[in-house]
């Protein structure tokens, strides 16, 4: 079974395990693709390989990266979460409304996080404890949140009237004038969760539960609680990305985040995180995000219609997953 051997690989007991080397090889392949992309686009556009543009790409990719951490962890536990795009739009409303009312950034952030937590608890409870297929739960949540946003805003944007300097800074300014704050936040969260996933018991539990829930249950893992926690992580990560997006847009926009869930899923599977659970790494996910971000930035500089980005992203996802599947079968 590929799942059980990947668990073994995680615990490091089998040095020669094919899947460990496969995983590493995949990450190397992703890094090489990024270099190839950078080389290609540097050739096609003079502006591409500048510090300003490369850091811009990091800034653009960071929202997908932050939400991708949560979605990847949910995938690893063997579930899915496609409500992150709607949640991104939804959390901006309490954030902006509370800031407008109180003039306090922290109260606004707390309100946004509260909504994110509630959504995470509902998704997690219905999926993990009640046992409803998580695709259905989060599909329903996608509808409910988007409809709720339309209903509340009357299909317009709610502008930020508090004009808090600190709120503007988190989405738009650069740390030391170089690294965009969203990219910095994404990096910190990424490193933190990479540590948790590979060096903390929780990470091992997620892989075990996603690899084979029944075996994990018999081995004494709290399967439901682990999955529940994964959904909460996912919603909180989507909330953080929603807060940064609201800062960038300077308002709660009713159309924000439409199709965002598909971008995130694309990056996650491109990074080698399997939909069937138990495999993949956050590093792979991050590399997947970077590939898509560089691609979209570089293609934007060629004089191609923007829709090519969608088409090429779609093709890449299919090829990447097909290739991944082929390797796995050959190894197994």
């Amino acid at each position, binding site marked *: 079974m590929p799942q059980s051997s990947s668990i073994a690989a995680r615990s490091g007991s089998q040095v020669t395990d094919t899947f460990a080397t496969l995983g590493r090889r995949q990450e190397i392949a992703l890094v090489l693709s990024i270099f190839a992309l950078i080389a290609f686009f540097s050739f096609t556009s003079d502006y591409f390989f500048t510090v300003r543009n490369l850091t811009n790409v990091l800034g653009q990719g960071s929202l997908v990266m932050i939400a991708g951490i949560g979605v990847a962890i949910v995938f690893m536990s063997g579930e*899915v979460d496609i409500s992150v795009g709607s949640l991104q739009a939804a959390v901006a409303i309490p954030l902006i409304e509370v800031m407008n009312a109180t003039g306090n950034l922290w109260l606004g952030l707390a309100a946004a996080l509260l909504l994110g937590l509630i959504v995470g608890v509902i998704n997690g409870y*219905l999926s993990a404890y*009640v*046992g*409803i*297929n998580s*695709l*259905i*739960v989060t*599909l*329903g*949540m*996608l*509808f*409910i949140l*988007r*409809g*709720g946003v*339309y*209903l509340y805003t009357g*299909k317009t944007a709610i502008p930020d009237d508090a004009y808090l300097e600190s709120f503007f800074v988190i989405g738009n300014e650069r740390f030391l004038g170089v690294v965009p704050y969203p990219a910095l936040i994404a990096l910190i969260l990424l490193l933190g969760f990479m540590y948790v996933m590979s060096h903390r018991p929780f990470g091992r539990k997620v892989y075990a539960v996603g690899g084979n829930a029944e075996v994990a249950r018999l081995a004494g893992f709290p399967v439901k609680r682990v999955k529940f926690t994964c959904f909460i992580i996912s919603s909180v990560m989507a909330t953080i990305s929603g807060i940064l997006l609201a800062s960038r847009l300077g308002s709660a926009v009713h159309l924000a985040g439409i199709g965002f869930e*598909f971008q995130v*899923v*694309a990056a996650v*599977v491109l990074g080698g995180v399997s*939909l*069937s659970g138990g495999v993949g790494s956050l590093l792979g996910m991050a590399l997947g995000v970077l590939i898509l971000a560089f691609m979209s930035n570089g293609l934007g500089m060629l004089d191609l*219609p923007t*829709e*090519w*980005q*969608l*088409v090429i*992203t*779609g*093709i890449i*996802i*299919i090829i990447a*997953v*097909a290739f991944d*599947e*082929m390797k796995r*079968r050959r190894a197994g």
Partner: protein
Amino acid sequence: MVSEVSAPPKSASLVGALVGNNQIVLVAALVVICVGISLAVPQFYSSANIIAILRQVAMVLIVACGMTMLLITAEVDLSVGASLAFVGVVAMDVINVTDSVFLGALAGIAFGALVGLVNGLIVTRLKVNSLIATIGTMMILQGGVFLYSREAIQNHHHLPSFVDIGAGYVGPVPIPVIVAAVIFIASYVVLRHTTLGRYLFAVGANEKTARLSGLRTTWLKLFAFVLTGALVGVAGLILGSLMNAGQPTAGRGFELTVIAAVILGGTSLSGGRGTLIGTLLGVFVLKVIDDGIIVLQWNQDLQMIVPGVVLIAAIYLDILRRRADAR
């Protein structure tokens, strides 16, 4: 809970089949909703409104028939909304060039079937999970339709027979409703009364067992994909005809409505379980609610929230009932 009956029992009577599923609940819900709305707004049961509901139901039901079979084989297709828009554009373009509605319709349906074939090949040959594969083709189609045409393609020759596909009537019955009824009945017969139908259930319930028993599982799945694609072609023609144009932005979110209706009807996402009667009821419940929100003059944004709540609540109740049965 684990070992559900995978195929419908052959000898079961219609009543027995209804009681054995969540369909009684759906029928009851449908009756309550209809009576409730009618009491509040009498024009709900006017013939004009009923025909409007039926036409809405028809579009979704046509694709839902294919999607039900696809879910029964344990696969899913998220590209149907994007394909729906593309079909309309292709059909309109061919009609404008050839001046023939027949050729346009043929091209539209062939395009839909081709999309289904590509989806099916990616899933069965390249072994890509169908959820991911069809997210990929959805993106390709969404981008592709804009690269193909940035604006809506109008019916240049003003051919009235194209308008008839969506807006025409045979007697008092709209043509799309007749088309949907024919497709529904044919699908029902195939799924319940032919070996092909039983094989589809077998593949979805346990692909490995089905393969070891000698079924050509990849061909069966390919069939379900191509059928779903071709039905998207039919629905796309109707939509294009109703707008009298090929509109690249049409069909957004259509895939979610179709899947919600099918799941609401009791078809399992994990394959091997599902009925077309359930799908029919699921489509009706969603579309009657949709229509009710309009005639009650409620905020139309509720049209997104209510189906989401209904979907989750329905599955929740289903699970609760099955747990109670197991006790």
